[in-house]
Structure formats: C-alpha cells, structure tokens
C-alpha cells in the first residue's frame, strides 16, 4: 500500500495551496487556494490533473480547507461552482464564517480592477452551503473508512491542522501554523500520533526568530517615535489576524502610556472582523479566553472608525488599512499620499509576495516606486519591517516534526532553496526521509498496513498478566553505536515478555493468528502426528 501525493499548488512556492492525497484508495484534497501574484490561468491549481475527464465527484472523497486565507480557500468557489465538484467540503466553524467575507472582498477587488470575474456572490453563497463545519478534536467519519480530525494550528483564527486516517494509514496536513502564541491566538497543539506522512508548510524554512518580546518592544518604539514626531503610521494588513494582533498590542500600550493619538481601522470589514472575533472567542488564546468574562480584548478603547478625509488631515495618527502587502485598494491609496513625507512610517510584514509594492519596499531601499505605468511615487517615509509573522519558524517546524516523529515528511508552501536546506536538516538530525515536490509532481511513499490477526485465548490471558524480566546486558551489544556508554558498564534493562511470547502463525487458507509460545509447540506436535 502506498500514499500518493499530488501537489497542485504551493510546491516549492508560496501561493495557491492545494495538495491531493491518495491514501488507501481515498482521495482527499487539502486546501484549494489561489495565487495572488498572478491574474492569468496560473492563479488556480491545474484541476485537470485530478481527473482528465472532469468528473471530480468520483475522483475525490472530500475537500479539507485549513483556514480562510485566499491562498488556501480562494479557488474553492471556482472548483465547486464552475468545475462542478459536488462532494463534501470540510472546514472549521470560524473558517466557514470568515471565508465568504474574504472571497467577497476579493471578488469586489477584481471587479474594481475590471478584470474577468471567475465567480459571483451567488456562487460564494452556493458554495458555502456545501461546507460541513467541524470543531477542534472532533473526529468526523467521512465515510466508512475515512476519518478526519482537526487540531488547533494558531496562525489565524479558525486555522486547523487536519489528521486523516484511512484503514491503518495515518497522516497530518498542517496547513499554515504557528508554534509560538501571540497576543490573540494560541500555539498549535496536536496529539502524539503514529503518522506515515506529515505534510507541513515551510514558509520560514531557515529563519529562526528571537523572542517575540523584543520584536514587540521594537515595533512599539518605532510607532511611538513616529507619532510623537507628528508622523502618520500606515499599517497595511489583512483584515483578519495581524490587524487584531497588532491592535491589541497598540491598544494596551496606548492605555499604559496614556497616549491620545487616534488609531483608525480602514474598512467596515475590519470592524466586522472584530465582531467575528468576539463571537469566536473560544478559538483565541488562553489569556483572552480567561479574561473574556471581565473584559473582551477586542473592545478597543482607542480605535476609531476611518473616514477618507483623515488621509490628508494634519496631525499624527495610526491607520490599519487593507489589503496587506500594499497590493492595491485603500492601503495603496494611502501609501501614495503618505510615502513622500519622511515623518511618516510604514510597517510591513516580514514576508511579502513577489510583485506587490510591499515586496519592492522590503527588498532593497527604493526611492521611487512605479505602481502602474502612469504613476510613480516618491518614497521618503521610514519603513519598519515587522517580523511579526503568524507562521512558525524553522525551529518550530523542527519541533513539530520531532514531536510527531512521522515516517515521512513532505514540505510545501515555501521557497525552493530554503526548503532544500530544511529537508537536509530533517533528514540528518531526525533521520526522517523528507520530500519537497514541485507543483504538479506526484510523490509516492509506502504506508503502514497492519495484519489483522486473531489472538488465541491463551495469548490474551497471558497478555493480561504482567511478565517482566530484568537483564543486565552490555550496552555495546544491544545499543546502537551512537549510544556507546562511557563506562561500558552493564546496563539494567527491563523487558516485558508477554507480547514477545506471542507467535504469529499463518496457516494455509486460514486467517493469521497469534498464539502463545507454549501453544505453538502443541500445534506443531499435532501437525507432526498428522504428517
């Protein structure tokens, strides 16, 4: 038996996450995202590889969406409504609640730019009707053989890692996750499982981050310095996630330092998102859950609603504007206004997709940026690169892989050279085979298959009685050479022989059976007589 993995997106790149796994005869699609860097056919995964005939309903058992980011859910509506997939779609409750917002926002943006529309609002609504919501650690029996279970992943609200079990083969697809908690979300949490395959993201395959406290301090210092100098701070973010994280941080700081500079949230979407957060409080971090009864962390005291006139109004302010990475929309508009003044500050996340203004700003120090053929912006403002990232760093990936100790690891959602170095580390430090397939490649790995065997009564009875022995053995004989003991003294070891006593017997035309050692002798005797 084998697990076959077809990578349709996010193979050696970041964007349009989509992995189709064939595990013991079940085919599951993990994530169905779009690539934000392209506007042509490369935006969506190449679905034709799943089924050349286009009969997706037979080809796939189910779709699992890990979280609501467009590079994980963006192609879902297209796939279900345009390509015609009718099977079940699983995601967590918050993802189900927030995905339509993100998709609708995206659709509007496409609309504004005058590009070709791939799906309509009705499509989004129709698609969401097919979604089955799951809760954390709830085991869902998709069909007779297929079990799935969601684990908390941090990253954004509602993000989950998914565990899949078909027969004896087990695997986990992490989606995006974070191993360190932040101001509003907890760290990823999973049980120790016996996995054949772990597919993990690797956005920061080589980065190791220092304590987040230092980063918070630096961010606050930069913002404080800018506003006390009368400057304006632009924080382009996704509406969900970083906006709340940074806002909690700033609001706390404002409170403590008694600052009166206004903080604005750019659009209704963000305000609405805050409302969603209040409803989804059980998916936030332990601290917010604990304090929720007395004070909701999402009731910001210093946050005001944004009005366009503020852009050119004098005086300092802080603005959270969508979309992130200054991809367009309000954040680009405001950037055009504020970039020419050196008093102002733009904070950008540590990672920006190639092709966005954010990427241009963070790679090198440009003085002029062309946003479209007609417009050129003078950039004199300060840039603060904010290493706040909801993705785990390489240490976190290593820690998770070490904790789960799967038989095979596959890296997706990362940059090729960095993935190669992480692959090498996983292989050398943990001794686990690791794969980094490119898009549209298929990787096949062997899967576990347990032999079903009957157990004889004597064996079962024997198993119920502890039967352990101690023996002193010279460590050199038994242990690997890496564990050579310094003193070469005999080591005390414990063995419990009750399981060892079992012997697997496979007779012709009979089911495999485990019998007790003594029993075996009897059976053999009988046979001798027969012969």
């Amino acid at each position, binding site marked *: 038996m084998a697990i076959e993995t077809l990578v349709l997106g996010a193979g050696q790149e970041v964007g349009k996450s989509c992995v189709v796994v064939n595990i013991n005869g079940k085919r599951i699609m993990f994530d169905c995202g779009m690539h934000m860097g392209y506007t042509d056919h490369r935006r969506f995964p190449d679905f034709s590889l799943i089924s050349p005939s286009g009969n997706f309903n037979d080809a796939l058992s189910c779709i699992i969406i890990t979280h609501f980011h467009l590079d994980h859910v963006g192609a879902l509506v297209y796939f279900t409504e345009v390509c015609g997939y009718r099977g079940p779609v699983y995601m967590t409750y918050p993802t189900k609640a927030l995905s339509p917002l993100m998709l609708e926002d995206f659709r509007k943006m496409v609309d504004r730019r005058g590009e070709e529309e791939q799906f309509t609002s009705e499509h989004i609504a129709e698609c969401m009707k097919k979604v089955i919501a799951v809760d954390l650690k709830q085991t869902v029996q998709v069909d007779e053989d297929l079990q799935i279970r969601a684990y908390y992943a941090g990253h954004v609200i509602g993000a989950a890692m998914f565990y899949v079990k078909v027969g004896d083969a087990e695997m986990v697809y992490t989606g995006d996750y974070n191993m360190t908690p932040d101001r509003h979300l907890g*760290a990823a949490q999973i049980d*120790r499982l016996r996995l054949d395959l772990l597919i993990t993201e690797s956005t920061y395959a080589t980065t190791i*981050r220092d304590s*987040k406290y230092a980063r918070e301090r630096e961010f606050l210092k930069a913002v404080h310095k800018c506003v006390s100098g009368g400057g304006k701070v632009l924080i382009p973010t996704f509406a969900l996630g970083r906006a709340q994280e940074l806002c909690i941080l700033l609001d706390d700081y404002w409170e403590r330092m008694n600052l009166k500079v206004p903080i604005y949230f750019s659009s209704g979407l963000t305000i609405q998102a805050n409302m969603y957060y209040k409803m989804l409080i059980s998916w936030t*971090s332990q601290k917010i859950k604990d*304090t929720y009864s007395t004070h909701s962390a999402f009731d910001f005291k210093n946050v005001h609603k944004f009005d366009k006139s503020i852009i050119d109004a004098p005086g300092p302010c802080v603005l959270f504007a969508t979309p992130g990475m200054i991809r367009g929309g309000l954040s680009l508009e405001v950037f055009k206004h504020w970039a020419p003044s050196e008093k102002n500050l733009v904070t950008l996340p540590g990672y920006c997709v190639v092709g966005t203004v954010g990427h241009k700003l963070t790679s090198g120090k440009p003085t002029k940026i062309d946003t479209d053929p007609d417009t050129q912006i003078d950039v004199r403002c300060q840039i603060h690169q904010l290493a706040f990232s909801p993705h785990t760093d390489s240490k976190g990936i*290593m820690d998770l892989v070490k904790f789960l100790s799967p038989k095979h690891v596959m890296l997706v959602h990362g940059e090729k050279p960095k993935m190669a170095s992480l692959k090498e580390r996983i292989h050398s430090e943990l001794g686990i085979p690791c794969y980094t397939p490119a898009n549209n490649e298929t990787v096949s790995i062997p899967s576990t298959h347990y032999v079903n065997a009957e157990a004889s009564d004597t064996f079962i009875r024997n198993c119920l009685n502890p039967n352990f022995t101690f023996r002193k053995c010279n460590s050199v004989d038994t242990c690997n050479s890496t564990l050579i003991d*310094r003193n070469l003294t005999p080591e*005390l070891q414990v063995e419990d022989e009750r399981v060892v006593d079992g012997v697997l017997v496979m007779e012709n035309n009979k089911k495999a059976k485990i019998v007790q050692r003594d029993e075996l002798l009897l059976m053999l005797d009988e046979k001798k007589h027969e012969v």
Partner: protein
Amino acid sequence: MDDTPQLQSNSEQPLTLHTLSSIRSLLINPSTPKPTLSSILQTLTRSSQLTHHTLNLLTDLAIHHPSFSQLALDSLLTATESPTRLAVDSLASISELSFPDSFELDDGRFVSLCFGPSIPGRIWMLKNAGYLFKVRPALLFTVLLGFTKDPYPYVRAASLEGLVGLSERGDFNDVSMVKGCYQRALQLLTDMEDCVRISAVRVVASWGLMLSASNADMKAYWCNEVFAKLCSMVRDMSMKVRVEAFNGLAKMEIVSKDFLLQSLSKRVLRNEKQMEAMDQSTSEQFVTLATSVAGALVHGLEEEFFEVRKSACQSLHTLTILSVEFAREALDLLMDMLNDDSVVVRLQALETMHHMAINGCLKLQEKHLHMFLGALVDNCREVRCAERKILKIVKLNDLAMFKSSIDRLMENLDSYLQDEADVFSAFSHLGRNHKKFVGYIVKETFEEVEAAFEGNDEFKSARIAALLIISISAPLFNEYLGVIPPVLFSYAVTLLDRIYDAFSDIMDKDALLAYLCEKSRPPSYSAPNISHSEGEQQLPLIEGDTPNCASNGVIDSEVGSQIMKEQKELPSYQVEQHQSEYSEVTKFVNFILAKCPDMWQTIETGLTNEVLRSLRCLKEELSTMKFDSLGSHDALAFALLYIRIIILLVEVWEHLLPAKGSRSHGMGELEFKLGKLDRRIKELMSTFVGFSAEEELNMLELILVTYALRLCKLETICVNLTFKRLTSIYSCVESILKERSVLPSNFVVELGKLLHECSLQFDRCLKLFSLKKFVFHGTVKHLKAELSISNNDSLHPFPFVSGLPVSIPCKIKLHNIISNCKLWLRMSLDDGLVQYVFLDLDNFIGTGDVKNFDFVAPFYRTPKSNSFTLKVCISLECLFENVSPIQRYGGPKYELVPLCKEKQVYYFNVNKD
C-alpha cells in the same frame, strides 16, 4: 435498635442497599450500644462476599468507634489476602484509618496485589503503596521499574509516580539501578500518552539528579545531560508536561555555562572561542545536545499558558546562581516578563530578580530601567511591593539610574498613598546603599526642602519626608561625608513620627531621635575625640536628647567590668550562700505557684481581667528576682515560664467563656495566642528535665488542655495532626497513671471518653478542667546555653569576601545538657536563608552540669552585599512528641526550641568598592 435481629437473619443473602444505609446510620451515631455494633461487625464480615459498601462500613466503624477499630482492621486485612480489586480497596481503606504506627505490607501480599488482574487496583498500588505502607525499597523498585513496560498507559504513569516517590526516600548505592531507572524514564519521554510523559519528566529530573550525585567525577556530565533532556521536553504539546519540565529545571545543581547560554538562544551557538574554553568531553557533549537545549527558556517565557511562564521564571531562580554571564543574559528576558498580563507571572519574575539581587547577580542596565521601574506604578499592590523589595537591596551603578529610581518611587508615592510606609523604607535603604549619590540629590533638592520648611512654598509633605529620609539615611553605616547639611537632620526631627518606621529595621524611635539630634549639630561642636560613626553604636543607650552621648556608653562599660571583677574575687563566699538561698528560692517559687489554682477558681466566676493583672504582677516579681546559684536560676526560670503559660492559658480560656460583651477578639488573635502557648509549652517540655512523675503529669495535662483548646476553637487544616499529637500525649498520661496508680482528674477521664468515641466535642472535657496545685520539689533542671562571640559588634564587624564562607568563632557554654540532646546552631539571614550546623556533644569539655566548647562554625552562603548581619542561636531539637518529623534535608528532623537569645554577628565586605 430493632434492626439488629433483622440484620442477622438476613446474613445469608447479600445485604440490600437499604439495610446497608441503616447500618451506616447506626455506625455513625456515637451512642449506638456496643452489642449492636458487634453484631453489625459480625454481619458485615460474615456476609458471603465482601463488597465495596461493606468495606466503607467497616472503615466507618473503625473511625467512629475506636474500641472496634482493631477488629475492623483485622477483617479489612483478611480481605486483602486474595489479589482482587476489593483487596486493594480495603488496603485503601486501611490507609485512610491512619493508625499511629504505619502498617507494614509484607512482600508476598504486595507483589500479589500488584500482579493481580485488576488494572485500577494495580494503578492504586503502584501509586500509593510506597507512600502509605512500609514496603522493602528493593522490592518496590523492582516492581515499579517492571511496570514501566506495562501496555496500559495509566499503569506506566503510576509506576513512574511511584519511582518519583521512591527517589525522595531511598538511598540507592547501586549506580546501575539508578541508571537503569533513569534510562527507562528517558525512553518514556517519547511515550504516546501525556500522562506518562508528565511522570517520565519527573522521574528524569529526580533520578537524573540522583545519578549525577552518585559519581563526583561524572557529576557535571550527568547534570548537563539531565538539563538537556528536560530542555527537550519544553516543546511538548501538553501544557502539564512543559510545566513539569521547568519544575525539573529548577532543581538543577550544576550546569555548564554553555548549556545555560544555549537555553537562552533558539539558534545553536557555535562559538569557537567558547569551544576552546570547554574541556574536550564537555564540548563533545555540547555539540550533541545543543539542539535540544536551544531556546528552551525563551520558549518557556513566551508561553501561552501562565502556568508554564511562571514555572519558567521560577526555574531561573536557581539557574541564575549557576553562572554570572547567564544571569546577565537571562535578566534581559526576565525584564520583559514584567510586561506580562498575568499578575502571578509578574510577581514570580520580581521574586526571581529579588533572589538574583541577594546573590549579587542582578546587574541592572540603563535599558532595563524603563521596564523595571515601571513595576512601581503597576496597579497591583503585591507587584509594587515586590519591586520595592528589590530596590531596597539592589546596587545601582550610576547616578542616572539612582535618580530615575527616586523619581519613579516618588511617582509611586503620588499615585498610591497607601504605600507610604513601604516607600519610605525603600528610600531609607536606597540612601544607605548609595551614599555616593545622595550628595547630588541633596544638592538638587535642598532648596525645595528648605522652602517647604520655611513656609514659602506649598508643602508637599510626602515628597519632603521622602527626600529627608534619603538624606539622613546616607551617613548611617558610613563615615560622615560632610555634604548633608545639618539642618536637614533637624528638619527630620519634626517629622520623626512619620519617618521612624522607615528605620525600624535598624533602630527604634528614640535611637533615631538621638541620631538626628547628634547629626544636626554643626560638625565643629562635637567632641574632638569621638568619631561620628562610634556615636551610632551607643545610640540605643540614650534616652532623649542627651548632648554628650558617646561618653555615656564608656561609663557604662566601665561599671560593667568592675562588677565582673568583684564577682571573680568572691567565689568561696558564694558557695556558702548557695545552699540557704536555694531552699529560699524553692519556697518562694512554691508560694507563687500555689496561688495559681485559687486564681483559676476566680476565672470561672468571670473575673478574667483581675486574674490576669495579678498573674502579671507575679511574673514581674519573678523576673526581678536574681540569685547567683545555678539551681535557683533553674527554679526561677521554670516558675517564670510556668506563669507565662498560665497567663496565656487564661487569655485563651476567656474565649471559651460565654461572651461578656466587654471585649471582642478576632479569630486571628486567638490563633496567635494558641500558637504562642504551643511554643511555650514545647519550651517547657524540652528545656526542663528532672520532673517527678507527679509534676510531669501536671504538665502533660496542660499540654492536653492546649491541644483540646486548639481542636475546639480553631477549625484549622491541621486538625488531623493536632489530633494525633493529642492522642500521643494522652497515651503518655495513661501510662504514667497506670504506673503510679494515681486517680486521673475529671478532665483526663472525660478526654479519654471523647477519644474513645472519636468525638470532637472537646468543650465537654474542657469544662471539667481545673488548675491543679503544682508543688515544686526543686529537682528540675533548666537546659540552657550561653553563646558569646567576642570582638564583634556593629562597630567592629568581621571581614568577609562575598561568595566565600565565613567563620563564626563561638564560645558556647551549656548548662544541664544531657547526652541524648540534639543541639543545632541555627544561623539565619534577614532574607530567610537559614543554615544549620550540628553541635556534637562529644566535643564539649567539662564535667557535671556545665560544659564549654569553643567552636568555629562555618557559614557558607555569604550574600553579595557590603555588609550583612547573621543571627545565630543555639537550638534544641524537640523530641518529646515524635508525631510528625519535619523533613529537612541535612538539617534537624524535628522542631527546634531555642536555648539562648539570638545573637547578632556583623560582617562587612573587604572587597567593597
């Protein structure tokens, strides 16, 4: 009672629930007659199969009716013979009964129960057998280690828990055993189940340390190894495992610096220079283990769960002592914890810093100040208080830091008026510790203070008082700097009432006043021969504003030496006098003691205050008596203590009387008095020997009354302990009564009944108590010790180098100490650090009642401060009630009773800058 025959007739069938419940109601009723009880016992034990319910009922029987407890125990024991679940349950019931001598479980029964088919029973046995019963350690170890291989996770976890318990008790000489166990736990660190991993972490910590202790050469190697293994568990997905991992880290004794530093960095450190510094084996070890250590503490501090963050802060407590460099780097992280949203974590971080300050590894830098001093305006009172506690001992390196500390303290004072007393105290300590900087502050603020006192400006009293405190505290302990204008001292006099509390740790109000008066005179007026610092030591002798204070002290000491001389010249005269004096003393003491029973009668009539007054008069009278012979000393000391106890007893007794409405007492006061009474009685029992049986009976009865009062009046958590003590003392009384064939007092009789019935209505017997007449026969001897440390006072401190041990040259004189006494030298620092040194009686020279010994005691944990004061005291281990030994590692096993007054020994740092 009509149930009884019915019970018997039904005994062949299983008892119905209804019957069982009626049996229970009979059992818990203390007045159920004995015949009924015995028939119930028969029914319960005869019923064909014992059930869980019958076990419970047997336990009830044993608890509520002590006379049946042995029978019930026997039948419970028979139930343990077959290895069933029920057997384990009955063992559990036996353990609940808490018999005075712990029940011994023989090997066969222990093994058969552990190997029995019932899994829950097995788990219970593994977890508890080692704690509750006496089992041979070697056997216990084998069984526990074996079961770590069990397929059931809870059995594995239970056996690991058992091993943790075993490590706390046993000494294992066989290194391979320890190692085997440690290695097995290492394997289980990767167990699939959370519960197993939690226990495995605990075993790795406890057995790993045992392993490292077993071999001095390999100690460093094993400690590093254990440290790394624990660090590798801080990224476990289970919160409880992570907490345990940090709890384990907090136990580490030595760890190489590189390992420590690595735990602060998520990146693997490969510094060539450091590698060279390490010896070959350590560097090899470091390379293999570095990845598991990397960033462990950082992860702990940025945790989602406050439990883990707290535990991580706590582990820094011990780890920062191990390396200065590590302490410095860890402090950067620790400072950020003051920004934590959980008060518990902030407090723990501050406590860790306080601990670091005591050990001299709190190196504050400019960049820390914003965060560090921010805690002074925290909205939580405990946090502010903890912060000031650090400020009181911290050494600030430059003026800027000193100034910002002062500013933030002023802010603290402004926004939280209720903190005034403690803020003032912090100011006083800051001034004393930073004499250099005070001068600058005084220069800057002098005008402001002057203006305030001349009335030209708005009078900000708290701020002015604070400034004055810091100014006047600088010249304490330091030579006179000349920069503090004398007028400030006279200003301070006007605020004396408000500020004297800030100095209460070193002098009382009068002494402060004298000090201020002395300093407020311009330097030219003071007598030329007397240095200023000398004046301070004499301060306590002065009452009021005496102009020539220093000479007063000189006169006193001269007088003292003359008296000494006279005594030495007259030994023969004294001996003659002693005999007659002694009988006189005995007579006097008996006269005083005889008054007590009469007074007791008066209390019953409610005239408590009058009785207390006259008792206090007696006390005064006794304490003014002075005789020279040793015997009379003993008699007086005894009588004084006895009267003190009676006074306390009367005071407590008042609470028992129906309220008169004259005075209301809080529960706290009662508890305090009972505690004091308890201590006094222990002192009486431990430091006096040679009682006649009658006298002893009298005293024991007093103890019984104290305990009964305690049980009757206080619903403390330690009812069980007190009850145990009460029963053990009662059995003493019983045995004396039997030996002497004396009739017990009504009180004792009633108490016996109560104990018999296991009832807690002690007021019943207390009503019957009356004070007996105590006839003093003069055979009583007082155990006491005299401790003198020559050539040391606050003016002439001993030198020390911080971090190195110091010696305390003690001259010890012991009176009446007998050979089975266990004596300890107790040395304590102000911060609560206590060290004990055992005094071997064989080293004492001298015959008879008085023994002398010159002993040089070492004190190891010298703090990193300019000076410190050590409180030294000779104490006696209190053996008379061996109910609950206090387990102290390497120290005394039982409570201590002081034999002499605490002596202060002063030290100053020779290396001070």
